[in-house]
């Protein structure tokens, strides 16, 4: 059953479209499912996007193009060149600019008739309720557990829908939380995974189109909520597998004992979500092992001197193809199985991209009886910075 989200706050709603707007939105207006009535609903709608990155890009573009009257953009990050592979709101000339402002400028160019507010700030428990209160629908396009729980809880406390999307490598999830009879994020996942059990570092990356597809699904759900048309994803978790090109859906039930949206709410205010998720900073700082190190400059000097050093590269084969120090490739995940390939009588210098995986490798090998083993401090990134800038960073 379709559910309409009524605009909750703000000035007197717009009652008509200009001739220019009628022309701009004509392909909406000629559909009976949208029509003049639907287009005015879009014009009077206020949608807040949390995150203007991979999911936020198609969200911002499609919602602005569709004529959503007021868009809020929350992001504290700055555009960098690794974003451009998927964050299609941004262009090369935006690198170095705040994302919220770069996105605002792009969307204002796309549709000058709508109001766009950028908030160059990190969403926190201190500002979330204040930021959310002027909007009808909140769209979660974030990338970390603390913010996901924060967005969920703030939406439940304020009674606002939360259009959810999430991606991992080739898979995506989407649903709508926070509707009166529907479940919330905590009904689905009462607790986040502890930092130590999040996916391994050898599994980074994402195919750039994936957030485009999942963010577009979120945009479609947002527009349907505004129009009150169709069946939205309330109570359904849509799973998308890009490799198999399959969509599946699972039933999401409202948990009557949910501490947030259940019959006896036990969480009545926003909490410290970093503490709740067991992370202090932006990214989960995994336990860093203390191992003997060598700096890139020291390694260079020793190699130049002709010292007999065995360079052990613990990255993945596809990373070796990007750049390498001509080391022996033995991925961290295969180390236990292939440790016999290594000669403990030789002096070994282990490296990876940043020095973290190789620290684990050195720690493991020391425990396995290797004595002459060092970790290349800062990995291939530091090697590129301090010794050989022709080695590309990735």
């Amino acid at each position, binding site marked *: 059953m379709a559910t309409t989200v009524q605009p909750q706050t703000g000035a007197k709603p717009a009652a008509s479209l200009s001739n220019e707007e009628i022309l701009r939105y004509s392909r909406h207006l000629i559909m009976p499912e949208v029509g003049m009535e639907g287009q005015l609903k879009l014009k009077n709608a206020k949608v807040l996007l949390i995150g203007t990155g991979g999911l936020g890009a198609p969200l911002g573009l499609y919602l602005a193009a569709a004529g959503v009257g007021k868009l809020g953009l929350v992001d504290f990050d700055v555009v960098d060149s690794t974003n451009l592979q998927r964050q299609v709101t941004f262009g090369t000339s935006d690198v170095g600019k705040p994302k919220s402002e770069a996105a605002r400028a792009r969307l204002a160019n796309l549709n000058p008739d709508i109001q766009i507010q950028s908030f160059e700030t990190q969403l926190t428990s201190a500002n979330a309720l204040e930021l959310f209160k002027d909007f009808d629908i909140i769209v979660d396009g*974030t990338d970390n557990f603390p913010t996901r729980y924060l967005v969920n809880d703030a939406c439940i406390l304020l009674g606002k829908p939360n259009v959810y999307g999430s991606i*991992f490598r080739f898979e995506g999830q989407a649903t709508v939380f926070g509707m009166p009879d529907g479940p919330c994020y905590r009904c689905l996942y009462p607790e986040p995974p502890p930092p130590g059990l*999040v*996916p391994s570092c050898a599994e980074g990356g994402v195919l750039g189109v994936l957030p485009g597809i999942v963010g577009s699904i979120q945009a479609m759900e947002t527009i349907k909520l505004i129009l009150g048309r169709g069946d939205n994803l309330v109570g359904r978790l849509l799973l998308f597998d890009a490799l198999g090109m399959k969509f599946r859906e699972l039933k999401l039930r409202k948990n009557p004992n949910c501490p947030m949206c259940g019959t006896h709410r036990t969480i009545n205010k926003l909490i410290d979500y970093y503490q709740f998720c067991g992370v202090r900073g932006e990214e989960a700082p995994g336990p860093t092992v203390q191992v003997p190190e060598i700096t890139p400059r020291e390694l260079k000097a020793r190699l130049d001197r002709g010292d007999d050093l065995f360079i052990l590269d613990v990255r993945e084969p596809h990373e070796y193809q990007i750049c390498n120090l001509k080391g022996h490739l033995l991925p961290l995940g295969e180390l236990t199985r292939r440790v016999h390939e290594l000669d403990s009588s030789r002096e070994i210098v282990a490296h990876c991209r940043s020095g973290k995986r190789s620290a684990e490798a050195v720690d493991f090998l020391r425990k396995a009886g290797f004595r002459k083993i060092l970790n290349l401090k800062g990995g291939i990134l530091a090697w590129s910075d301090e010794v050989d800038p022709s080695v590309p960073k990735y």
Partner: protein
Amino acid sequence: MPVKVMIPSPLRPYAGKRDSAEFNARTVGEALGHLTTEFGDLRKHLFTEDGKLRSFVNVYVNDEDIRYLAKENTPTKDGDTISIIPSIAGGVPAME
């Protein structure tokens, strides 16, 4: 025809990179038991030390959440699909 267990991407590195596995099992618990016997590294990602399913891992038989059925004792029949759905935050970490 046995029961098919779908393995999500975040857990595939611990399951020999497989995306699914098939087992003869009468309950969800039995199927997950076979799975974690075959792929030992998966165990700590799915179960706590005292053998309970972790709270951030949801398991479905076909499209139903086993928390609303009989949990690990939920019976399975030939041809059923068991899905493991871990929470994913999104975001695109670089490698380390």
